[in-house]
């Protein structure tokens, strides 16, 4: 019986394959966007975990110097001589013209058992690993990629993070020119009767890192992706909801007949559920496959973003992971269930003897529209409240969600209101407006989807545009020096600086050290007192004579990110050297890390081991090319060691563009999904509207006129939706810029609007609405009169 009932229900799709395709497509697209984003996130997280688990760093405590500088070898030896089981690691990057490589030098003789090294096979040459020139263990991908020149032999090994080489500490020491360990791994079990290690050293003990710095840094990026995935999924569900609703309305009579012929309600509900499960399984599988393709296509962009913005190394390759495939399918089922709940309830409540009259599904009553409007007002209030007093990224996203859902819920009321403002002249025009207003409830879900997609598009493009505008202006200010030079060593840098000094306006050494501030990675720079900085570095807030105070060496500047994250203000003391007052805060877009600037002399005093080997040259722009050539030819610097301003700028912009490429792609996809939602709804309505159109046709309106009217109506509704989406999108952009960005990245950007972008988006919205309306319109225009007269025959 169940089988027969199920076959009968399914026969509907066989007769209406278009509807089935729409339902499956909506579901597949929703699943695809969601699971694609999840796949990207899962891949990135797995990469962070792999990196964090390298050498068991996720399980082992570490000893570090509080300032992040390398540990004196003598301090290491002293700890060993006191009996403590600690193991040195020398970590650093080597950079070449084409690529860079992170060198992780370990001492296999002392690494604790928890520090699982790479898996090695029997052909591994241990003597070669320990002795000159050493071996670099790298993954196949790293070996295939661009690498610095003159590396020791590579050995391909599994389970090594990308762009990283594990090698013996002696090889690392030689390649990096650093004998002192960067940090020490501490074995979990220490020998008999030793006092706690913290009593034996002044070094700082850091607990095992369950999440790496990179994972923390990139959290906000992944949250952004997730939010996009969720938005797309929500928009996709509109389609599913519309398609399921349409199918329900069309099968209302069938269900009634089945029940009259003796099929229990329970059997019908079960058959409906089974049918939806089958569809969800098919569409979900397609969606997961599509999601994989989307993710694989976006992955190189994501990898590029993560590398450019955060220095996080992940491979641009997507691995298939059954867990997200399964979770993708699961979310398809949940989404289908959510979209179908209304239909199931209606089916259950449908009286057996009610006339099988098709009604416009989801025909929200005036009361429903009012309720939605109240809910919208409440959500706007919530959004405003969150914007004013909310704290943290979650609150910022909650504010976004409240704003968007509120706008969607308020849409029908606003549309109805807008239409009631129109005072049409003539009976026909009156009918058109009235008919349009009547259509709003049926179209509202699709229009909501369109509104969300448009608002998201406006919001995100405003944010990206504002960012780009500010960032480019900031780069212009910041990149003032004509040439940037990297010498092979600090000694050669010093010699070069001396030789060049008479021929150029100024030489500004660039020296920086990595350190930890507030238990997060940070950088500190030492700068010379020079007008270049005084004039070009925009300070967001500053003490009087900030640059003078900095020059005396007893003050620091910190970047906006650090000041916002740690709530630092001008005048606060920061834990650098013996504690220095902050005299200024500067903007530092694109940098996820905290940063501080101190005077060059103070820097060299604090970090005697770090000598500048990079410097910037101020020279008249006309002389710059000649000097660059001279540096290369006369001093034999490799071509990439001398870069001009334009190159640095180009590189920075490339990183920036990369960052937002993925966002842009997701944006377009979401808009596409909204277009399909609109199409589905229009198709749904097209059939249901025949009884309303037939009398108008009968009293003397041509089919062509009716069809043209339908098209015009779609475009008009899309226009209205766009007009409403505009303020919502701008509000969204404001939230993104003032709340999300500050929370996620640590900088605040001035908002700029780009009306020309709106025009193109408006055109796109009209195109989507036009395309969606095209099919139903053409069908109406070509509809045989018999089909229209049938309406009267079927009326009772």
């Amino acid at each position, binding site marked *: 019986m169940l089988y027969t009932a199920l076959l009968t229900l399914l026969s509907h799709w066989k007769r209406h394959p278009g509807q089935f395709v729409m339902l499956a497509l909506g579901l597949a697209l929703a699943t695809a966007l969601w699971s694609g984003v999840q796949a990207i996130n899962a891949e990135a997280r797995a990469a962070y975990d792999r990196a964090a688990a390298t050498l068991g760093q996720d399980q082992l405590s570490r000893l570090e110097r509080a300032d992040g500088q390398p540990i004196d070898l003598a301090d290491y030896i002293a700890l060993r001589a006191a*009996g403590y089981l600690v193991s040195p690691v020398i970590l650093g990057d080597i950079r070449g013209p084409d690529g860079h490589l992170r060198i992780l030098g370990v*001492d296999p003789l*002392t690494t604790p058992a928890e520090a699982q090294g790479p898996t090695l096979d029997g052909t591994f040459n241990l*003597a070669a690993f320990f002795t000159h020139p050493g071996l670099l263990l790298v993954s196949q991908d790293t070996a295939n990629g661009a690498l610095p020149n003159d590396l020791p032999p590579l050995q391909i090994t599994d389970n090594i993070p990308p762009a990283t080489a594990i090698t013996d500490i002696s090889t690392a020491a030689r390649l990096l020119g650093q004998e002192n360990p960067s940090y020490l791994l501490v074995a979990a079990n220490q020998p*008999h009767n030793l006092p706690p290690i913290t009593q034996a050293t002044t070094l700082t003990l850091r607990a095992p890192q369950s999440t790496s710095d990179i994972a923390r840094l990139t959290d906000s990026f992944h949250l952004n992706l997730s939010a996009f995935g969720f938005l797309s999924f929500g928009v996709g569900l509109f389609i599913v909801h519309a398609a399921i609703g349409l199918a329900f309305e069309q099968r209302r009579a069938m269900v009634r007949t089945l029940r009259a012929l003796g099929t229990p309600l329970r059997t019908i509900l079960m058959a409906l559920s089974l049918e939806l499960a089958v569809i969800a399984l098919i569409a979900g599988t397609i969606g997961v496959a599509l999601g994989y393709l989307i993710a694989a296509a976006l992955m190189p962009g994501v990898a590029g973003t993560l590398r450019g913005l955060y220095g996080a190394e992940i491979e641009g390759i997507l691995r298939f992971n059954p867990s997200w495939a399964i979770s993708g399918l699961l979310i398809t089922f949940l989404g289908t269930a959510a979209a179908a709940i209304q239909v199931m309830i209606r089916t259950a409540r449908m009286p057996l003897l009610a006339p099988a009259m098709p009604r416009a599904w989801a025909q929200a009553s005036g009361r429903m529209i009012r309720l939605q409007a109240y809910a919208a007002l409440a959500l706007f209030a919530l959004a405003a409240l969150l914007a004013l007093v909310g704290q943290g990224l979650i609150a910022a996203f909650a504010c976004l969600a409240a704003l968007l859902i509120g706008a969607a819920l308020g849409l029908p009321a606003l549309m109805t209101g807008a239409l009631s403002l129109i005072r049409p002249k003539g009976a026909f025009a009156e009918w058109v407006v009235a008919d349009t207003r009547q259509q709003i409830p049926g179209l509202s879900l699709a229009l909501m989807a369109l509104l969300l997609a448009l608002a998201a598009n406006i919001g995100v493009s405003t944010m990206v545009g504002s960012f780009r505008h500010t960032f480019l202006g900031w780069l212009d200010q910041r990149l003032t020096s004509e040439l940037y030079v990297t010498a092979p060593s600090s000694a050669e840098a010093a010699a070069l600086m001396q030789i060049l000094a008479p021929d150029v306006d100024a030489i500004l050494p660039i020296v920086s050290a990595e350190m930890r501030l507030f238990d997060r990675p940070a950088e500190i720079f030492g700068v010379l007192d020079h007008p270049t900085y005084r004039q070009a570095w925009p300070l967001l807030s500053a003490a009087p004579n900030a640059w003078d105070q900095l020059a005396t060496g007893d003050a620091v500047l910190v970047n906006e990110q650090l000041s916002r994250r740690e709530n630092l203000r001008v005048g606060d003391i920061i834990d650098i050297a013996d504690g220095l007052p902050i005299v200024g805060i500067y903007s530092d877009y694109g940098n996820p890390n905290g940063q501080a600037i101190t005077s060059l002399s103070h820097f060299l005093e604090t970090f005697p081991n770090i000598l500048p080997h990079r410097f910037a040259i101020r020279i008249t722009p006309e002389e710059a090319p000649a000097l660059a050539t001279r540096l290369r030819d006369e001093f034999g610097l490799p071509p990439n060691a001398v870069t001009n301003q334009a190159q640095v700028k180009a590189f920075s912009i490339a990183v920036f563009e990369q960052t937002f490429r993925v966002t842009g792609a997701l944006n377009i996809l979401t808009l596409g999904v909204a277009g399909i939602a609109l199409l589905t709804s229009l198709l749904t309505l097209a059939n249901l509207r025949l009884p309303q159109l037939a009398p108008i046709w009968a009293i003397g309106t041509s089919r062509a006129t009716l069809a043209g009217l339908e098209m015009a109506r779609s475009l008009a509704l899309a226009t209205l939706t766009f007009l409403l989406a505009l303020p919502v999108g701008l509000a969204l952009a404001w939230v993104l810029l003032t709340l999300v960005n500050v929370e996620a990245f640590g900088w605040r950007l001035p908002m700029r609007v780009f009306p020309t972008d709106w025009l193109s988006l408006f055109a796109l919205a009209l195109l989507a609405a036009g395309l969606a309306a095209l099919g139903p319109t053409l069908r109406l225009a070509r509809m045989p009169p018999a089909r229209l007269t049938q309406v009267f025959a079927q009326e009772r």
Partner: protein
Amino acid sequence: MIRTLLTLLLLTAPFHATSLYAQGFAGLGTQADGFATPTPNPTFTFPLDHGPHPDYRIEWWYLTATLTGPDGTSYGVQWTLFRGALTPETSDNWAAPQLFMGHAGLTTPDAHFSAERLGRGGIGQAGVTIHPFRAFIDDWQMVSTVSEGDALDALTITARGAEFAYDLALTATGPLVFHGENGYSVKSNEGQASYYYSQPFYQVTGQLDLPDGPVQVTGTAWLDREYSSQPLSDTQSGWDWFSLQFEDGARMMAFALHDGTGTPFTSGTWIAPDGTTQSYGDGAISLTPLSTTQVAGREVPTTWRLQVPDRAIDITTIPLNPQSWMATSFPYWEGPITFTGTHQGRGYLEMTGYN
């Protein structure tokens, strides 16, 4: 994992040449590739030769002590520093190809503890210095406490494992003794040999830190110094080594190098109470296992019959603890023994190659 392979590399050099070569590690062929090889009739220069010989592939400072607690309980202690060279060079940085491995053992009648440390020379984590004499790895060390005379005449040794520690003071009551021909000790019929001398006359006092608390101990100890580049022949897979202290004050060292088949290669040195020696070449000493014990999943001969017809010695050795298993990267049996028969006394037994 690097660590395991590395330990294999270091350890297979002295003990397990065959399997090492079978694995075909490059740079460690049967030939001693640039390493020095021992030659007959050596002349030792002290204290220089107490120190490391980086041009030889393998070397050790190997101390075993038979000890007694205040209640008459017997204990055994082992302290060893191995040196293995990847190339016959050295330097003062991470690149030094001189690798060190420390083993510490402590045996009681019902427990056996072992610990291991690895480290490289060149940076100060492990090594051996001559002035003053100090062999060390991490906090484990063997330090000379003499102001005049041979540097090895008085020593302190310390070591610490996860469950135990010890701190012993040693004073020699006799001279250094040289095995084989003046310290040139032949290991096979094909001529493999090492430089080998000992200080077998230590009196010991000190303290053992056991899980149950500290124990004051006294007793005797024996220090072996040996270095070579290729001590075993291709076919030899392990050895059984005895150090014996007779009740009359005499000492004896005996070993058998065994391979899979055939008769073991035996050798030994009789040491009179005054330190005069007599060397015995292959065949003069016979070593016969009497019974075996299941240790760490393998059968190990733990009671032995040792016969030296030339000296009318026919004794049976019994271990203090048959489970004296050194659970180190390269495991072996090492523990104190007592013997009865024509003679009586205490000693130490080491057995390798029982896989």
